[in-house]
């Protein structure tokens, strides 16, 4: 690890064992009071763009399709961002990234819910029977619904008190369900594109997810000493 920032932070005079945990510049930004509110506003950006598009009529010839697909894309993007927090924390020295994980996870769920609502409303006309029939008919819809339902308990136990009630260990075990969500989400996307044999975008997301999940597996099994 480099310690180039040490002197800049004025801690270089302490003996190495007395030094407080190193705070990288990135961390200082992430620890800033405004970091979370800023991320919150930025994460609402895609939604704002879509809402603007509805009224400005800039969503193309088939706005319903654009809304359904965009909300799905953003769910997948936020899922990737959420899953990137821990590896990034380990690759860089930005420990403070962990503060943003919950917010990103909740936005993943938020866009997932929007995605489902767009499908249920714009595609199915909120006809409950049609929705159930469609979930049964189309495996990729079933998989997508399962991915969303799997996020529900995670979103419901995302606040601090829930961690205390469950105990950190059980809470963490429960929240590992996000890995299953990731697998279901990419399968959902793959299946949706399979009919058109068009996998370029699916492959891009699959590679990102494979790196993020593979890194965890590698740390756990290939390097047990450092796990």
């Amino acid at each position: 690890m480099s310690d180039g920032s040490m002197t800049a932070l004025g801690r270089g005079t302490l003996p190495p064992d007395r030094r407080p945990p190193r705070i990288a510049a990135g961390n200082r930004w992430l620890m800033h009071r405004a970091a979370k509110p800023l991320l919150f506003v930025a994460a609402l950006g895609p939604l704002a763009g879509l809402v603007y598009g509805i009224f400005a009529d800039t969503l193309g010839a088939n706005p319903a399709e654009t809304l359904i697909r965009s909300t799905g894309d953003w769910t997948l993007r936020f899922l990737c961002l959420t899953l990137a927090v821990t590896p990034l924390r380990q690759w860089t020295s930005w420990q403070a990234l962990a503060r943003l994980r919950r917010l990103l996870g909740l936005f993943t769920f938020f866009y997932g819910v929007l995605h489902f609502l767009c499908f249920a409303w714009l595609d199915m006309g909120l006809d409950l029977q049609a929705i159930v029939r469609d979930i049964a008919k189309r495996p990729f819809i079933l998989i997508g619904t399962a991915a969303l339902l799997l996020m529900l308990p995670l979103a419901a136990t995302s606040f601090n008190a829930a961690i205390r009630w469950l105990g950190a260990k059980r809470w963490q075990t429960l929240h590992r369900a996000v890995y299953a969500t990731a697998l279901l989400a990419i399968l959902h996307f793959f299946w949706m594109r399979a009919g058109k044999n068009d996998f370029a975008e699916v492959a891009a997301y699959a590679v990102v997810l494979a790196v993020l999940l593979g890194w965890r597996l590698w740390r756990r099994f290939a390097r047990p000493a450092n796990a």
Partner: protein
Amino acid sequence: MPKDRAFDHPVSSEITPRQVVLDRRQLMQGAAALAAMTALPGRSQPARPGKLAPLPAVKTTLAGAQTMDKPTPYAEATSYNNFYEFGTDKADPARHAGTLKTQPWTVVVEGEVSKPGRWDIESLLKLSAMEDRIYRLRCVEGWSMVIPWVGYSLAELVKRVEPTGKAKFVQFVTLADRAQMPGLRSAVLDWPYVEGLRLDEALHPLTMLAFGMYGEVLPNQNGAPLRLVVPWKYGFKSGKSIVRIRFLERQPQTSWEAAAPSEYGFYSNVNPQVDHPRWSQATERRIGEDGLLARKRPTLMFNGYEAQVGQLYAGMDLKRLF
């Protein structure tokens, strides 16, 4: 064995009396006249968008070729479609088709015909009178449009090349030129894109060779300089930018059949009762007309052309031959 045993003669009691036949004829003539009267007023052609060269035409007199549905706005019909040679996104064709070179253009006619040959676009444009027709277009993906096409019945060309007795199918081969079509770099489909029809489908007067839309020549992204339009089949059956028409004895495999045989059949007739394996085909969204929260409209059998084309499929199991 008597000479005429090869034929089934009806017993005389089964022969329709002359007066009944005449009455029936009169009734049908009346019905035809009525159909003509109701068909002729039609919907007036939408105003020319003024983007491309005009392609003058006369209003069609063909039954069913002038739907009363409201035509889709030109902007949407030319910016939202599938033409994988220019990319798989439905906005890609409008974005990338500028590189398509439509002059000079030749269509090779070959196979089971007495008069094979090469037709340049100029001679095809002059081959028969251009007609304005307004067809519904239903995409297999569940959306639909209403397009005013300019062209003539494919049958006009078929008649001139004189299919032999062996010709049972027609294959349409579309342009596949990497220099002009960036989408060919992707392995989404095997190029060139090929489609096919049964000869009787190809000869049906509603099957159209289109050279224009909205009173002007076809925009590149919509299949310039000439394309097929088969209004009772899902849109992908109507090949764009055609370069070769082959008459065959055997049913040819189409690009989508090759890519996903369980999902796309040779016939691909619009049929609300036969779902795509992955989604329902019962309803559709009319592009540019139905609001965001509007219920999708029911899809019609043979896209509403059952009266004209239903007899082509009499007795066929349309679930099996989808």
